[in-house]
């Protein structure tokens, strides 16, 4: 069973733009008629919502309040079967005014419990079809504050992935991380970036790591004239942040595959070289070792097909079994079905 859903977000919610965008795309692909109503300049600038697949699905009012009259009119016209409000505070305003009387109501609460101080909390508990909490702790806190147990559900937060460039615009953001040793084959991936440039594909490549092979990699960057495209950076703890594609150009099986697994679990598609003993499974494109042309062609394919990137990213997460955006969206869909049943 699918239906028409309106999501309302404000700046006070926990869920990030990339996660919301992923949920929207997932629901649309699953046949739901879903719209997003959001307020605030932050949401207006959210790159993840610029995705072509979401065209016409997002209503942004940079200066309006989400409970203001224009939003109410649009909501009334839409006549959704279910309204999902991503903030306890925002939900309390709607409940206080007796809005949305005919719709099933799903409300997401914050991890820190701040929106449990909302003035109409009891009204929310009476009105809500499902109350969603990001953790057992947050859920327990709400139960203590009177949330009906049968309406409380835990929806663990997805890993935030920011697929900027998902609309095909902006440079493709590549990342590799791991020690800078010859086994990693970074000279070949840097060469692939030079080939990408020749192919007219704009990209930014971050190599995160340190090691004795840094001179060879730095010289490859210099020789190929890639100072603007390739950055060698020290480990920063968030190597996959803002990455569109993970690149693993290893030339040896002895190079650790931990980074590749991290990329898969984070829903970042990869282009990786073949490994003899444990070939990468799902979530990316495998190319021969020491072959910058093959690397570049695979990267160009991903650059030109944001949908493929998304699909591969999803596959990678399924493969590794991590609770990422794919699981998040699937679980949310099942909760919507339950709320409408």
């Amino acid at each position, binding site marked *: 069973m699918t239906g028409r859903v309106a999501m309302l977000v404000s700046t006070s919610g926990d869920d990030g733009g990339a996660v919301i965008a992923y949920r929207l795309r997932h629901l649309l692909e699953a046949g739901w008629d879903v719209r997003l109503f959001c307020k605030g300049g932050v949401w207006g600038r959210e790159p993840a919502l610029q995705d072509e697949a979401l065209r016409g699905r997002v209503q942004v009012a940079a200066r309006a309040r989400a409970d203001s009259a224009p939003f109410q009119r649009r909501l009334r016209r839409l006549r959704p079967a279910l309204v999902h409000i991503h903030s306890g505070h925002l939900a309390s305003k709607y409940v206080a005014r007796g809005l949305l009387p005919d719709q099933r109501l799903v409300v997401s609460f914050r991890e820190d419990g701040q929106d449990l101080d909302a003035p109409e909390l009891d009204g929310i508990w009476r009105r809500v079809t499902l109350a969603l909490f990001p953790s057992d702790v947050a859920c327990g806190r709400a139960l203590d504050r009177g949330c009906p147990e049968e309406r409380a559900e835990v929806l663990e937060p997805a890993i935030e992935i920011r697929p900027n460039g998902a609309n095909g615009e902006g440079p493709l953001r590549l990342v590799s991380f791991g020690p800078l040793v010859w086994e990693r084959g970074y000279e070949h991936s840097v060469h692939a970036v030079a080939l990408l440039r020749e192919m007219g594909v704009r990209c930014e490549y971050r190599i995160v790591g340190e090691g004795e092979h840094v001179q060879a990699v730095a*010289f490859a960057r210099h020789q190929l004239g890639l100072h603007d495209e390739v950055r060698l950076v020290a480990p920063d703890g968030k190597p996959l942040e803002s990455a569109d594609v993970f690149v693993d150009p290893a030339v040896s099986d002895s190079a650790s595959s931990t980074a590749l697994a991290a990329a898969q679990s984070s829903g970042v598609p990869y282009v990786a070289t073949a490994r003899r003993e444990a070939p990468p499974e799902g979530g990316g494109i495998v190319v021969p070792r020491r072959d910058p042309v093959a690397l570049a062609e695979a990267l160009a394919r991903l650059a030109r097909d944001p949908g493929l990137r998304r699909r591969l990213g999803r596959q990678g997460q399924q493969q590794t079994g991590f609770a990422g955006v794919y699981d998040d969206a699937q679980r949310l869909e099942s909760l919507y079905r339950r709320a409408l049943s």
Partner: protein
Amino acid sequence: MPLSGRRPLHLVEIGLRWPPETFLCWKLEGLAARGMRVTVASRTIFEPEARLDGVELIHLPQVGRLPGRLGLALRLLALFLTAPRRALTLLRAVRRVPRGYREYRGGYGRLLGNCLPLARLRPDIVHFEWNSAAALYLPLFDVWRCPVVTSCHGSEVSLYPHVPGHEFSSERLPAVFAGAAAVHCVSESLREEAQRFGLEPGKARVIRQGVDPELFRPNGGPPPGEAPLRVISVAWLRWMKGFEWALIAVRRLLEAGVPVRLEVIGGDPTEEIGEPSERARIAHTLSDLGLEDHVHLLGKLSSADVAARLQASDVLLLPSLDEGLPTVLLEAMASGIPVVATDCGGVSESFTHELEGLLVPPRDAAAMAGALERLWRDPALRARMGEAGRRTATTRFTLDRQLEEFHALYRELAAA
């Protein structure tokens, strides 16, 4: 040639290891044979018993064995007593060294300790083959009051300024060039690179490498057999020599049905170079690409053995990522075999594409394989290129020509 007819021109080479690299041995012995007094001041002695004809050795203390404060003070006092002006000049010059570089070199005392053993030298010419050594002894440039020459052979100008780990030496390049009376560059390409770091065009002297055409000569017979293609590479096992691409090229050739055998001659980089050897990477790549039966690592060989291996080869493959003007190219040409070489640094100044060999882009194993296959399919082309290479080597790149140019440079500087 004696200066003023009484004593020979005295050249001191500083910063070399002992014995020096082969191409430097030829230069030093050649200049000594031309009547120059040649001294090498070295603190990196690998073979103390090694001798070069007509070349003296000054054994400098290693960094770890520099005198302590008392020893330093005594040496300085001795210099003050015997050559007070030199001592003052040296002290002032060391103080002028930027603090960062001084600290990098172990501080004021260490820098002074390095310079003191050489402060009494009174040569006609000082030559630093490596700019990093020139940077270390820069305070002595004023003390000696003789022309100082530095050389740009390759990496120090074309590579190190662009990679991490050599910041201090690279930062000192402009000061070294400013202090030198002349800067020897082994290629036009390096001269241009050096000018980006402050080298005045008027100081630059391009003197290309030379080769002994008697030692490196064709084996006198027709080009060696047709199959398999016998390819040889000669270089230190360092990352900038690009061996991985050579191995990929061999794999491609085999896949294309070209029988090929590659011999790699070269030793591990010495400790002073401070780089890990590429041996493990090469060994892994060999195994990974299934080339164990087709590629052979012969290690470091003597010049005579290298000459013999070149004679027994069909083609020299130079897969480097960076070069100055590689002597081995000239040796191969003198040996009458064609070359396939990457177009980096001064490589294209040593031979003409399609005449003595084939140029390919660096990091392009497919192009390397294509060039080698072409030579395999066309023995007549190999023979033509080999003959042309021999002609070029024996006319443009003789050791005699190189020595004469150095000798002329030193005479000119000393006379000035």
